């Protein structure tokens, strides 16, 4: 292992000088370093700003301060064990990461998932979407100096985390979805807890809207700030709410349904302005749509197994281990060497709260992923910050970082 470097090397700035304009080198414009430790960068994002007075001329993001080596590390784990790594990528959307990884593995080895497991996956993914949007809303409003919204948002988020904990035993890093279904069935209190959340939450969204939607200070900070045109969004690969706020009604849950999303009736909220306020409105409406999906999925939640019955890929239930030798063998094989995946590559994408979350998974006939690549939405969306910020004030940059809803674990992987 190389020694840990604890000194900042100032020479790293030399490589960046050619990215700034002539004015910066002559001293007409100012170079300002923002981050990695800055409260509004939502983690450890570093931005090198070129400023003309208070106006932003250029933004040079420097990422990688949270590079975790997840892709490399997953190559060293079996398909089942690698699930724990997925949680920690986009730590506001753990369930969604579990989901896309499991879908990729299921596609690679051609594994079916029972309908009950699919419905529970949808419920939890949508709850997670709400919880992720709540963190976004809280921190975004906090950045724009509306402190109390943060406290309200985290109050409701706790309810969702309690449901997660009830299912999986963990608040955030659930690892609840496994290739072939779920780790186990949901507990009996699950339905009541979700119903209670459904009963309470619509009024709470109105509460947040009452605080922000017509708040003149909030409007002043968000309207006409960071306008993103639809063609720019597509050219730069922006997905998710940011794309929909620019007027493109594209949602992978609708256009390429997975996990049975085609059974549920919901709308894709869009907006045409493409500014920070439009993105706010789209996300608020998305929370309401997520509630609709949860309601429908819960109403017709089927009974039955929550794991595939294919014993070559899914461990047998514990009750069988006592009397079936075959079950013991399968159990042993799966937990010691894992299941083999055929040679080939698949790409699966789902709609995460931030946009298109894709997994490129390649198998080589062995029990471990030969190569896994995460196409993460924040990584793609952050590139567009340069476009958004040009000509705005430094103070608006704070709103812009919040509005594209980046998660650094998602960017740096």
């Amino acid at each position, binding site marked *: 292992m190389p020694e840990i470097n604890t000194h900042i090397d100032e020479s790293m700035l030399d490589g960046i000088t050619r990215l700034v304009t002539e004015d910066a080198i002559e001293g007409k414009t100012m170079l300002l370093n923002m981050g990695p*430790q800055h409260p509004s960068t939502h983690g450890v994002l570093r931005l090198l700003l070129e400023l003309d007075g208070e106006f932003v001329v250029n933004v040079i993001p420097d990422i990688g301060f949270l590079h975790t080596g997840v892709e490399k590390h997953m190559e060293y784990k079996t398909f089942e064990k690698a699930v724990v790594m997925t949680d920690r990528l986009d730590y506001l959307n753990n369930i969604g990461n579990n989901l896309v990884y499991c879908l990729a593995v299921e596609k690679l080895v051609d594994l079916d998932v029972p309908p009950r497991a699919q419905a529970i996956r949808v419920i939890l993914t949508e709850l997670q979407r709400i919880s992720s949007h709540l963190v976004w809303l809280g921190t975004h409003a906090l950045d724009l100096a509306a402190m109390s919204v943060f406290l309200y948002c985290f109050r409701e988020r706790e309810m969702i985390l309690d449901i997660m904990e009830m299912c999986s035993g963990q608040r955030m890093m659930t690892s609840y979805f496994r290739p072939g279904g779920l780790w186990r069935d949901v507990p009996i209190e699950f339905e009541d807890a979700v119903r209670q959340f459904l009963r309470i939450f619509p009024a709470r969204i109105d509460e947040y809207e009452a605080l922000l939607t017509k708040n003149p200070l909030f409007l002043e900070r968000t309207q006409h700030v960071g306008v993103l045109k639809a063609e720019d969004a597509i050219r730069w690969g922006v997905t998710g709410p940011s794309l929909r706020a620019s007027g493109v009604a594209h949602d992978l849950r609708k256009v390429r349904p997975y996990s049975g999303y085609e059974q549920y009736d919901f709308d894709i909220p869009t907006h045409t302005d493409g500014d920070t306020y439009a993105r706010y409105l789209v996300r608020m409406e998305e929370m309401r749509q997520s509630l609709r999906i949860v309601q429908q999925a819960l109403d017709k939640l089927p009974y039955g197994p929550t794991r595939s019955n294919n014993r070559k890929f899914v461990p047998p239930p514990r009750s069988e281990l006592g009397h079936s030798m075959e079950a013991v063998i399968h159990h042993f094989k799966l937990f010691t060497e894992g299941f083999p995946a055929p040679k080939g590559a698949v790409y699966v994408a789902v709609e995460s709260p931030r946009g298109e979350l894709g997994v490129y998974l390649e198998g080589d006939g062995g029990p471990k992923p030969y190569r896994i690549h995460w196409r993460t939405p924040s990584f793609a969306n952050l590139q567009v910050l340069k476009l958004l910020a040009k000509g705005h004030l430094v103070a608006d940059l704070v709103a812009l970082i919040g509005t594209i809803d980046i998660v650094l674990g998602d960017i740096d992987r």
Partner: protein
Amino acid sequence: MGVEQKLGNMGIVTAKLEDVVNWARTKAMWPMLFGLACCAIEMMAAQAANYDMSRFGMELMRASPRQSDLMIVAGRVSRKMAPVLRRLYDQMPDPKWVIAMGDCSSCGGVFNNYAIVPGVDEVVPVDVYVAGCPPRPEGLIHGILTLHEKVRNQKLRDWA
């Protein structure tokens, strides 16, 4: 604290300087607003209404290291981040304390690989380790109370 009951008629209380200073230090410890990864979200949850860290005099998170005296390393520290973390620590005024929150900053956690520092104690000296991936807000609060315990027991001769 109940100081007013001990004041008596004179309005004077006698105590050891050591105790008074340590008491003052624990009751207004300003943590640095510095989140790295997943644990930062739980740190935010600990600040929010349900867990309310301000009960322990810690509602004020300072974004500047110059104004803070507790660094909560909330999340995994990558090798690229290590020099930045060290500089932030060096910028904090004495006396200062460090809590390694979560498995990743305590020992590397599940990420035992090329990119992550295996334990932040190789970069900055750590006072309290909080286990969990991520620790619940209660876990963090317990870690903070443990740190308060440590601070309360510091001796005058160690200050210098």
